[in-house]
């Protein structure tokens, strides 16, 4: 089996035992990308030269530090196209940032590469992280490695597909309303959204500032914990980043769930779920019960308002965050426009895709005079309601269980004409984003051959507990098998 289909933890052991080198891992990653990515489209940019140089440096470091080297040292990773990397074109899946080469690197990425991880390339995503299928990327579509006619989910579809297909060992994505968890579920990998404020947003091209979080997509829960531990922690460049000391998920991974109280929100399972999703979810609950956890039904009455609140708050913040995309200081712009106003309008009309324009309009409307109270302010009050519901439930419950997505991966093109249908993909992930609590999705079986994800959420700053519950489930259910495509021999 290709090294790249092994877990990060396995690769790390192999590197320290001299069974493999970072250079070899990176060459394999590049070879697999060359062979398989033309069919998947996970990567929009490959940084092979930089990757090879970084691999060499990682190998020297491993030789010098051995077990003392950080766990991610030498490991090939992919970075979502919203994470700024100095000197590397970063476009957020948008034409309006074509040619934008940031003069700085996102803190989360810097921490990862400072620990020796090797960035191999940039992963495709929905434009400005707005979408649930990666079909909104201005550059290319990404296909689900399990079934190429289906979406990988979004907005971090490229990051999820890259890990699912074993093109890289791990990737970083961002999650605003489910953009790490949902593609992880649809691609059959682990995707973790830490507590809001746990990972720096500096250098992350902003979608919705009060919701965006950077997180790992990996093959196993332990891998996710290793990446999380590398990137989490206070950043003085991000005023919203927490000063609280970072917890230690690795230390808690093996503790199990015996005696834990796990809650299933009635409102989530009473809704429309694909029968396969429902079946796998119930089975997952059964597995956790068999491990000694107490599964109970809980109620989050505000759930029915959560999606609407999200689709007011996120576009509102985005409409303001994207105002800087004016074509004057970066991006192609409209240098021959006859007036300033025309320059703005031409640059933005040509540069933004239809979904982004839709959300900017929605957000501008929600903030505009006369509508602010009824839309934005009200949505933020509903957000308080959602947070209160979670607070109440978490007084008695250690973790919440839910399916990640109401359906497995849907066919490419099947929801692009219906924004509302697309938005519905987020209905099970959005509430956790609004509350800012940590949530993970991990593989929980298949529905007609397509991956189904189990979502686990815990109170704010209980990221370790979240991964602990996930790890317990993973031990019982086993790590998901890679898709057939990933097991094709690569020369």
């Amino acid at each position, binding site marked *: 089996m290709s090294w790249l289909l092994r877990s990060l933890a396995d690769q790390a052991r192999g590197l320290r035992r001299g069974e493999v080198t970072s250079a070899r891992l990176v060459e394999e990653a590049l070879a697999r990308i060359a062979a398989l990515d033309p069919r998947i489209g996970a990567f929009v940019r490959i940084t092979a030269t930089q990757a090879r140089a970084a691999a060499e440096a990682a190998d020297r470091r491993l030789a010098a530090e051995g077990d003392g080297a950080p766990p991610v040292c030498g490991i090939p990773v992919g970075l979502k196209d919203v994470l700024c990397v100095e000197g590397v074109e970063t476009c957020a899946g948008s034409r309006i940032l074509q040619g934008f080469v940031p003069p700085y690197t996102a803190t989360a990425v810097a921490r990862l590469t400072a620990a020796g991880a090797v960035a191999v390339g940039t992963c495709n995503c929905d434009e400005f992280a707005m979408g649930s299928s990666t079909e909104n990327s201005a550059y290319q579509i990404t296909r689900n490695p399990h079934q190429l006619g289906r979406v990988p989910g979004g907005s971090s579809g490229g990051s999820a597909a890259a890990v699912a297909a074993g093109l890289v060992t791990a990737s970083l994505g961002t999650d605003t309303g489910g953009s790490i968890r949902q593609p992880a579920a649809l691609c059959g990998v682990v995707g973790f959204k830490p507590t809001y404020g746990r990972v720096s947003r500096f*250098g992350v091209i902003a979608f919705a500032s*009060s919701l965006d979080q950077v997180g790992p997509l990996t093959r196993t829960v332990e891998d996710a914990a290793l990446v999380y531990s590398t990137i989490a922690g206070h950043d003085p460049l991000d*005023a919203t980043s927490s000063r609280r000391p970072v917890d230690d998920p690795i230390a808690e991974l093996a503790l199990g769930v015996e005696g834990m109280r796990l809650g299933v929100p009635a409102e989530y399972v009473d809704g429309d779920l694909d029968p396969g999703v429902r079946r796998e979810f119930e089975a997952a609950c059964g597995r956790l019960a068999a491990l000694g956890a107490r599964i109970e039904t809980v109620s989050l009455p505000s759930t029915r308002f959560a999606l609407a609140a999200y689709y007011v708050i996120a576009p509102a913040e985005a409409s303001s965050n994207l105002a*800087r995309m004016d074509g*004057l*200081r970066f991006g192609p712009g409209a240098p021959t426009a006859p007036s*300033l106003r025309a320059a703005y309008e031409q640059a933005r009309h040509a540069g933004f895709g239809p979904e982004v324009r839709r959300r900017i309009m929605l957000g501008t409307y929600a903030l505009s005079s006369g509508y*602010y109270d009824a839309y934005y302010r009200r949505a933020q009050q509903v957000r308080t309601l959602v947070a209160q519901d979670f607070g109440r439930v978490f007084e008695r419950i250690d973790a919440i269980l839910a399916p990640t997505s109401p359906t497995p991966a849907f066919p490419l093109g099947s929801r692009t004409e219906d924004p509302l249908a697309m938005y519905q993909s987020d209905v099970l992930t959005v509430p956790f984003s609004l509350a800012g609590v940590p949530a993970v999705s991990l593989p929980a079986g298949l529905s007609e051959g397509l991956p189904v994800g189990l979502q686990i959420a815990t109170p704010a700053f209980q990221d370790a507990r979240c991964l602990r519950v996930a790890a317990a489930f993973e031990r019982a259910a086993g790590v998901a098998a890679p898709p057939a495509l990933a097991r094709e021999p690569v020369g």
Partner: protein
Amino acid sequence: MTQGSSGRRLAEVLSQWEPVIGLEVHAQLLTRSKMFCGCRADYAGLPPNSNTCPTCLGLPGALPVANAAAIRMTVRTGLALQSRIPEHSKFDRKNYFYPDLPKGYQISQYDLPLCVGGWLEFDVGGTERAARITRVHLEEDAGKLLHAGEIQRAGFSLVDLNRAGVPLMEVVGEPDLRSPAEARAYLVALRQLLVYLGVNDGNMEEGSLRCDANISLRRPGEESLGVRAEVKNLNSFRILQRALEHEVVRQAALLESGATLTPETRGWSEAEAATVPQRGKEEAEDYRYFPDPDLPPIRCDPDEVAAIRSELPELPRARALRLRQQHNLSLDEARGLTERPGEADHFEQLVAAGAPPATAAAWQLNELAGLCQRAHRSIETSGLDLGQLARLLLLVQRREVSAATAKTVLAQALETGADPVGLVEAGGLRQLSDEGELTDRVDQAIAARPQAARDFLAGNDRALSALVGHVMAATRGRADARRVDELLRERLTREGGG
């Protein structure tokens, strides 16, 4: 006030209409770094676009973090203005598109400013007034558009973002001002306060202190407000007053002709000596204010606020009052000496070095001020040794040195750095004030100029100066001229009368 026929017209209007004026003053804060990033706040003279970073450039992914010193300076200002400092405050985004605004929004404060209410005391032509403050809040400055007028005709504008992100404190006044002169006096007092607090350098020409005015007219006795005009970018006291005077006359003419005013924005045109409408906007801008999600709310801890309050420097009015009381100065003298904190420091140090207060006050305000100005220096940077200056002033007070002599040696001291008292001694320039010798000289002068003496007694007061002159010449300028004058008058009238 404006002279001539326009002055008369203004006076006429002011007798029939009551101006209602409120000022919005923007002050760049004297922090080291910008409001939300580490670029320099003091951008003067830096090459264009050399003072930026991803945050103030508004690059994708960059984030703001608030400057704690800027917040403290704003709280300090509010406390000096008797404002209330609410425990909770926040930053909001003001969204609009303009090339000097890289993010497409300005980070400002909307409904929870750092300081609420308060008042400013000031003096208008001898009358004490107080005008209420609405609020003091904190925001970031925009970049600069260069040569907008001329280059605009060529079809483009040039932008320098060095200034983008510099901390800007906005002091909003209630419309309590009732005349252009009052508005000017308010601004003078506010500027002085900000300089005393060390939060702003008071420089209006270079734009570190900017003023916009809102002005409307109503009939005296009316309580409702008229339709206002906003007059922007009044960058000197003179322009502020003239622009408002112009507005008063302009609005009165319109109102008297029965026209309805619409709210508008105007600017001052020096060339036309008038306010002129500014480029109209297509539609009123909807700024879509909302709390900035990148910046957590600010908590102004009451203990920290108390600490800032206890560190407030002595404010100008209090300092003037204290100097009056301590040194028996006149109101005008005290005000003059405390116009700038550096001047007040100089005066107090001079007195501490032994100068007699009354003499020190008079000399600092008059002779020393004049000499420094001619030498292109300020009082604080004169270079004169305060101990030496104090000794000289003591001699002046004791009439051991004449005022004229003192001025001469001071001018020399300023140029050469020599000790002025040393110059007096070396030149044998002490004033002749020995009564006996003066009396002799006076008698000699009367004897030598009998005609002048007779003319004086005949009622020609000016004839005395010839006699004084005779004594001064005979003593090579060293005689105490005032005492000579007194003695002459005594001798002559005694002789004449007796």
